[in-house]
């Protein structure tokens, strides 16, 4: 790897490794991101140097980027360098790249940092999944993110291939400035953030399977599409059998396979390999807590919650929902009113987490039966697997509480 690095880069990398071993020794987190920060402080071009002569895929979007990154890694096979811990900003990218010399790299990238990562890593493929409201109190207005992506992608080279979701008008707006785009027809039920056209603010009109605006902005033609569990890329159709649930994950797999297809990995091969992805940092895992089996489902924002609610198997089973509003969650839980909890009517919801009263109020107004859980010992015991939906820090709390 040293052949890729300048002297400054080499010194930065040595400092990074020192910090890594120090912070591991003192037990302060994994240390790798701290090391990445130090490395970048010493040598800002470290990310550029570490990316040289490698094939890089960047994955970004509001929802599904951790999962899609894992699907890309599994689909590529061999040894792939990736920021599997979800540290998706430059320091995390440096940490991942300095920890592996594999020529194949997949980096999950925070939406706000995509322009920086594009410039620094010179990727072969960028996968753009979706854009929706997330963590409102950080004032990341989704439209301004789309604007920044558009501007960054307009400056990229011809050989960069953008794999983008054609059903999300904000993603299409952001992507269309790139020179080489492979549009994917992925089911995207969440439309509340792109009801007005990103180009002219008039209404986006949706017809079955398409969308358009009076200004001429419309859904582009696609090279890849999903139908049930079937994925079609160009003229090849592959039957998928993923181990992770939800129609949205078939869409994520289709986009991952479309990206890998650019790098000459055959879709039938990559999609088959993706079956090995069973749980990503606990997401979708079935874990154990006090003799109960718990299906761990993470959703960080309204679009994610809606997708998960739709993926619940039909029936009247109880559902546990845990909501926090710490900094990492966004401190404003108003988004609960943007989730269609009405679809839980007929079930009983056990309200957990620090903002369980915000949740119970929302459910009461939705006429959904609920119980506020002030004492975890009052949770019912059942032999069935319980579905637990949780937002970010509430999910972490339950990861710690439960065992594999």
């Amino acid at each position, binding site marked *: 790897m040293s052949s890729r690095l300048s002297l400054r880069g080499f010194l930065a990398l040595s400092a990074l490794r020192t910090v890594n071993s120090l912070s591991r020794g003192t037990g302060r987190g994994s240390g790798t991101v701290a090391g990445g920060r130090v490395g970048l402080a010493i040598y800002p071009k470290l990310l550029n140097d570490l990316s040289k002569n490698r094939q890089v895929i960047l994955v970004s979007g509001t929802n599904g980027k951790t999962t899609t990154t894992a699907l890309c890694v599994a689909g590529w096979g061999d040894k792939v360098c990736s920021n599997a811990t979800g540290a998706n900003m430059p320091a995390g990218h440096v940490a991942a790249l300095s920890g592996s010399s594999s020529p194949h790299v997949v980096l999950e990238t925070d939406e706000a940092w995509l322009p920086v990562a594009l410039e620094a890593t010179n990727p072969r493929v960028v996968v753009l999944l979706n854009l929706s409201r997330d963590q409102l109190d950080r004032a990341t207005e989704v439209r301004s993110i789309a604007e920044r992506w558009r501007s960054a992608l307009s400056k990229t080279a011809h050989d960069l291939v953008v794999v983008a979701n054609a059903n999300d008008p904000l993603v299409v707006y952001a992507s269309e400035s790139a020179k080489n785009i492979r549009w994917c027809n992925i089911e995207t039920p969440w439309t509340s953030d792109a009801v007005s056209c990103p180009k002219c603010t008039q*209404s986006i009109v949706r017809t079955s399977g398409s969308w358009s605006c009076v200004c001429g902005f419309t859904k582009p033609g696609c090279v890849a599409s999903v139908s049930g569990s079937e994925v079609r890329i160009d003229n090849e159709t592959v039957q998928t059998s993923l181990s992770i649930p939800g129609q949205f994950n078939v869409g994520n797999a289709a986009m991952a396979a479309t990206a890998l297809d650019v790098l000459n990995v055959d879709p039938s091969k990559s999609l088959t390999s993706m079956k090995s992805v069973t749980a990503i940092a606990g997401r979708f895992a079935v874990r154990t807590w006090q003799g109960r089996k718990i299906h761990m489902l993470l959703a960080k924002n309204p679009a994610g919650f809606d997708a998960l609610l739709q993926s619940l198997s039909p029936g009247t089973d109880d559902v546990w929902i845990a909501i926090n509003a710490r900094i990492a969650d966004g401190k404003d839980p108003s988004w609960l009113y943007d989730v269609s909890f009405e679809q839980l009517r007929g079930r009983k919801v056990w309200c957990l987490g620090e903002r369980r009263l915000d949740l119970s109020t929302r459910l009461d107004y939705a006429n959904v039966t609920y119980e506020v859980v002030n004492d975890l010992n009052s949770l019912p015991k059942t032999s069935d697997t319980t579905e637990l939906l949780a937002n970010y820090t509430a999910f972490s709390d339950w990861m710690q509480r439960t065992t594999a």
Partner: protein
Amino acid sequence: MKIALIYPELLGTYGDYGNALALSQRSTRRGIDVDVMNVSITDELPDADLYLLGGGEDGPQRLAADLLKKSSLKQRVANGAHVFAVCAGLQILGTSFCVEGNDAYEGLSLVDVETTRGSVRSVGELLSQVGENKMVGFENHGGVTTLSPGIEPLGTVLHGRGNNGHFDGFVTETIWATYAHGPVLAMNPWLCDEVIAKVTGNNLTPLKTAADQLYAERVTSLSSR
């Protein structure tokens, strides 16, 4: 009671559906008939007793203001219709507001208030004293709103920023406006009931809902900060 939710595709950023939901649930549970109409930007403004205006980002806010200027809203308010507005909706009701920089954009001039761009964004929880009650909510906006003499603020800020750090929103005979976005009526059952009582002219029977507990918890938590 006929409720019109104005342009939810433009003004619906922060859980603003919560206000329509709380109004309709708290009325229905008392046997008051409610009809909630979603008004799309291509629709004529329908006849309604109460018009709801939500929050929105800059571009959509400007378009909503343009459409409302051309609409019958001002006439309908003059004829006695009520308005409940939050955040960007509050700004639109005034004489001018700022979007995309510091250029003033013309509002509806329904109320003589003016919004300029503040030096910082106001983000976080809001607690204000509204008459004898406390109001809790969340704000997220970059505006500073100045009320002309004679215009009453809705509340006095106890925590957070509101219009300017001292007062939040404004209130007239038929209009309520606050910087607390989205589900402010869901979180403040007494305020929601006050709006329903005023709009329908009914004396409301007490109603117990899950919101009572949330409201009590937020008031306690914010009062101690």
